[in-house]
């Protein structure tokens, strides 16, 4: 039991460190970059109109007053009181803007993650079972190709083909401007808008799920316990699922739970292509608009999400691998 606590203690320390680094990056970069720091908070035109005294007031208000250490403490305080500053573009607290977009992000990412995982695992397992056969080579080549395709390009192609040329789907956004007023109508509309983005994201990520499943499965299929189980006379289905896949699942599970971190971060490129109002696109917008508080706030939120997903992965892994309960090591890595 002691061992487990020290293991989690180490992990918590690591995650705290990650947070600390992310916060420091946010804090340090604007202060390291050349040029007027006020530019990171206000437009050029606005700054020109300020007097010297007003500038100092403004500097203080955005945390640039006082010594570096004082600024750092102030910044930290802000983070822990959930105050990430005010967005230049939206003129709202950053946290509010993020909260607005969170649901959209989740409705895009969650189905895509699940779809990609389920398809990747099923085809990966099938491919591994039929190793060396033409269908395996075929799927392998197909998936390697999918992995080689940039997500945003798929998105652009889909829009060009299915939205513009064929007109089957909308070209951008999450909802149409004109609604029929009913809830059901709204849901259908949202779903209609989600088809292409989810398809894009799934295709972009299915490759890595497939490859991991296939190689993990090949490893478990070659183990002694497979021969043992077959010698017991179990059915093919039992062999594939209860033994082959069950063991192959361990690294797959770890990868999947860690990818849940993107539930908050969204997908910057896919959302940008589809002009989808998620947090990913928020990051992109904030870069274009030079909305630095927003950009930093989103970065921090995404880091939170990733850490939360990692913690979830660490906590739940022993549930599927009984060896992890008694020993401190779980991932194949170190």
């Amino acid at each position: 039991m002691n061992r487990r606590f020290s293991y989690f203690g180490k992990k918590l320390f690591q995650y705290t460190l990650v947070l600390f680094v992310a916060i420091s990056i946010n804090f340090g970069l604007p202060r390291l970059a050349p040029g007027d720091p006020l530019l990171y908070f206000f437009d050029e035109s606005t700054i020109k109109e300020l007097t010297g005294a007003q500038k100092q007031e403004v500097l203080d208000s955005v945390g640039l007053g006082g010594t570096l250490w004082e600024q750092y403490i102030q910044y930290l305080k802000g983070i822990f009181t959930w105050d990430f500053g005010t967005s230049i573009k939206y003129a709202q607290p950053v946290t509010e803007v993020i909260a607005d977009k969170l649901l959209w992000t989740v409705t895009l990412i969650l189905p895509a993650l699940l779809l990609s995982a389920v398809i990747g695992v099923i085809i990966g397992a099938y491919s591994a079972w039929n190793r060396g056969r033409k269908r395996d080579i075929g799927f392998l080549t197909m998936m390697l190709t999918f992995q080689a395709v940039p997500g945003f390009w798929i998105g652009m192609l889909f829009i060009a083909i299915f939205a513009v040329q064929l007109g089957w789907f909308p070209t951008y956004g999450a909802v149409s401007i004109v609604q029929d007023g009913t809830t059901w109508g709204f849901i259908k509309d949202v779903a209609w808008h989600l088809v292409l983005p989810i398809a894009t994201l799934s295709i972009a990520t299915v490759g890595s799920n497939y490859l991991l499943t296939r190689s993990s499965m090949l490893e478990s299929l070659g183990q002694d316990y497979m021969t043992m189980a077959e010698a017991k006379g179990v059915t093919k289905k039992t062999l594939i699922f209860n033994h082959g896949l069950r063991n192959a699942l361990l690294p797959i599970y770890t990868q999947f739970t860690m990818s849940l971190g993107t539930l908050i971060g969204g997908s910057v490129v896919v959302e940008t292509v589809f002009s989808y109002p998620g947090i990913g696109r928020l990051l992109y917008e904030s870069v274009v608009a030079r909305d630095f508080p927003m950009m930093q706030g989103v970065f921090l939120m995404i880091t939170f999400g990733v850490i939360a997903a990692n913690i979830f992965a660490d906590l739940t892994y022993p549930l599927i691998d009984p060896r992890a309960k008694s020993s401190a090591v779980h991932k194949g890595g170190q």
Partner: protein
Amino acid sequence: MRKSTKFIGLTGVVMFSIVALFAIFGPLFIPYDAYKQAGASFQPPSASHWLGTNDMGQDILAELAVGARTSLFIGIMTAILATLIGGIVGVLSGYIGGRFEQLMMRIIDVVLTLPYLPLMIVVAVYMGPGVFTQIFVITLVMWAGKARQIRAQTLSIKSAGPVLAAKTMGASDFYIFKKHILPGVFPLFIPQFVGAVNASILMESSLSFLGMGDPTMKSWGSILYYANSRSGFLTDAWIWWIIPPGICIVLVVLAFSFMGYYLEEKVNPRLSAYTAAQKRVKQQITVNEELVAQNIALAVRDLSVKYPKNGKFTTVVSDVRFDVKQGEVLGIVGESGSGKTTVASAIIQQLRSPAHVPHGAIYFEGRDLQLFSDEEIREVRGQQIGYIAQAAMNALNPVVSVEKQLKEALLAHQTLSTKEIDERIDEALIQVGLEPKWRYAFSHELSGGMRQRVIIAMALINKPRFVIADEPTTGLDVMVQVEIIQLLRKLQRELNLSMIFISHDLPAVLSITDRLIIMKYGHIVDEGPSKALAKTSTHPYTRRLIDAIPLLQPRKEEVRDVVH
């Protein structure tokens, strides 16, 4: 290495060469400057503009060629940097260890946990767009994964035989590093590099697509950036504006994927023993009445097994022929390469390709198992023929409890109520000398001897009449070996099992078997009743095996005084 792997690697090289040639010679031969207007906007493909022009009238093919140079340059530069930095950090941390290693591992963990695309974006924003920025941020997020992998490799070399041997010879750390670790780790750098190019080209294209590319150096990603921001996909020009850059990216990344796949196999061959099994069709099977009448449980006739090697075939089992009567225990003895394990696999039809059985019949209760269909053989396995494997580390599924694995063995052949299943499991465990509480245990919680007992329980739980025990005592401590042999002897007598006992350990075999066959290089060289064979056989190999048994009591002396 499989042929398909080599083919994949070759395809990758060809694909990469095409793109590389295009990158190097393209801008020299294409008459247009990619950055200047070359014609009217949105010209469709024509003889003068093979891919037409974009919205600013620039020749798209020229853009592609210039983009090729940029993308490849950034991709390869970052890959070199990331691999070198990651590799050096990895090797040093693995080799030096201690505080340095701990520190590096923390840093690597942090870098790998941070979300990479947002991190790249944030840093790139502050550094300003440009090639240097791109190279910097991509290297920043890529080196850590390489460091971790190379460290792992360094550690495994450090703890392997040759390094330990060198230490016993008094080698200095420097010698070991130079002579063993570096040559062992360096081959890994190459597939790492190839994988890095792969990833960095994709990352560069994403960054450029988001507008962080160098405005003075077009890349495929930035071509798509302009296409997107100027709504290229809303026009008819999308076909020749949007598709080609994407295809270029896919080609190059795929090329490196293929090359990487081949290189990984070469450097780190994942020797998975698994190959897909052939399907067995239902055939007409006639019963050999003679064998049945003579009460012969298993009759192997003229069995041969060959494996292809370098174009030819090596014979692993050669015209083997033996009988096992009902209730009899036959021992198969041989050293490595004798073919005894192949015979066992052949009997329960678990030989995998490329093994080939040119001829031979295996009559179980009069019917030739070679002719059984998939379903028929599945019914035989575990129910009529039990298989006791060697208790290797992974003989039992490590993530499934003993209980579940026993239950599985039962349900493969019968339908039982939950209560019946419980009772049968308890019964099976007690029968092999284990307390029922061990049903909840997992493989790693059991000692070698206990694992072996569980395997025996699994083999016998459906009360088969015939059992194959394949090296059931190998790898166990001497005292445990004796316990297992006594257990098997007891069970064989109680249940009147017909048994084949395979081992290289003669004393073990002699104590449990009625008859023996001795195998060498695939042939049966001697056979006969066990004790008589050991005492009186004149075959030189048999004598050698018998004489090679180290004894506590000199031969032919009374064994009285010390034993109970």
